[in-house]
């Protein structure tokens, strides 16, 4: 059957500001938003959007569907019988059509040092028990899609906020038994733009396609940061 979709269009070289256009696409029970966008691109080759894997792994196809952040490849037209309005991810600058500038998000990610920090010498593997793995595994499933940043009203108000995915990733490495970098990451968590900008709205966890639950990670991070403050109060100033 034919379905009508409305898409936000913006060409920075021609348009003063974004506007919406209506398209007709063919859809059945298996048609995803990404499929529909590809049909639109065949009608109008100048239409731009990001995608790669088509299977909710690469995290590049995030868009707003009727105002809610979604992965295009994991969202189906059959669930929107009254129609869809597709706009670029909120809280990011639009570059063209549905493409946003993800640079601020990537900067926040790298600021929390999202890698194993371990100074141990040698070639031995770092073994880990299933119990040690279970501590952080949920928080390790992030695909860096950025949907949680579009869902977060605090990131919308304050783009300097490190944000859900970055803080969840910091928590993931802090919980990893092979990691020794917690002391290096805590200053970022302890800061105003770290965990303390979060007011536990929780929409990030609702929209996360990988059930990472960044809101839980951030609020566990608040407990860690509060503990860190108490510990630091008993240390000489130079050691803080």
């Amino acid at each position, binding site marked *: 059957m034919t379905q009508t979709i409305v898409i936000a269009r913006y060409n920075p070289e021609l348009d003063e500001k974004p506007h919406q256009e209506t398209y007709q696409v063919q859809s059945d029970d298996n048609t995803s938003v990404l499929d529909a966008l590809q049909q639109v691109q065949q009608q109008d080759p100048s239409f731009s959007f990001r995608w790669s894997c088509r299977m909710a792994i690469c995290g590049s196809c995030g868009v707003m569907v009727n105002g809610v952040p979604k992965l295009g490849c994991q969202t189906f037209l059959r669930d929107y019988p009254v129609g869809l309005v597709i706009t670029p991810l909120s809280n990011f600058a639009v570059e063209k059509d549905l493409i946003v500038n993800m640079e601020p998000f990537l900067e926040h990610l*790298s600021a929390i040092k999202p890698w194993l920090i371990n100074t141990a010498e040698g070639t031995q593997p770092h073994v880990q028990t299933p119990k040690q793995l279970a501590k952080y595994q949920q928080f390790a499933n992030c695909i860096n899609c950025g949907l949680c940043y579009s869902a977060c009203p605090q990131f919308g108000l304050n783009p300097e906020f490190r944000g859900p995915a970055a803080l969840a990733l910091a928590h993931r490495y802090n919980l990893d038994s092979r990691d020794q970098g917690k002391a290096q990451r805590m200053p970022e968590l302890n800061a105003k733009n770290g965990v*303390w900008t979060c007011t536990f709205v929780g929409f990030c966890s609702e929209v996360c396609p990988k059930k990472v639950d960044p809101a839980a990670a951030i609020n566990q991070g608040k407990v860690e940061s509060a503990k860190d403050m108490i510990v630091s109060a008993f240390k000489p100033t130079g050691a803080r």
Partner: protein
Amino acid sequence: MNNGTKQPKRSDEPIWWALFSAGGVCFAVLIPGVLLSLAVLYPLGLISAEMLSYERIHFMVFEAFFGLAGLAFVGAAICLPLFHAVHRIHHGLHDLQWAHGPVAKVICYGAAILMSAIALGLWIF
């Protein structure tokens, strides 16, 4: 933007957040019981006036547990819930973009500190 080259300043938010959390527990656990007994059951006559007699309340507030029961009650039913409430107001003002920055903060938490001091003062004197 800071990429870990220089360390950002530690936020003082853990203090307010801890008071907010403690106040939230009091709000959830203690306040409903207090309201039920003082504002519902008592006016309905389901608690005898005897239970809230001056002598009994005076004993509970100033003498029970070496007088600490009154202190605990003032802290848990007034002071901590106050900090809980102003924390919500403070963040609400920021979320609505009506006020943020140090002035709003001083007014909000200052109000909680002042009202707590009055409540504790009434208990002490």
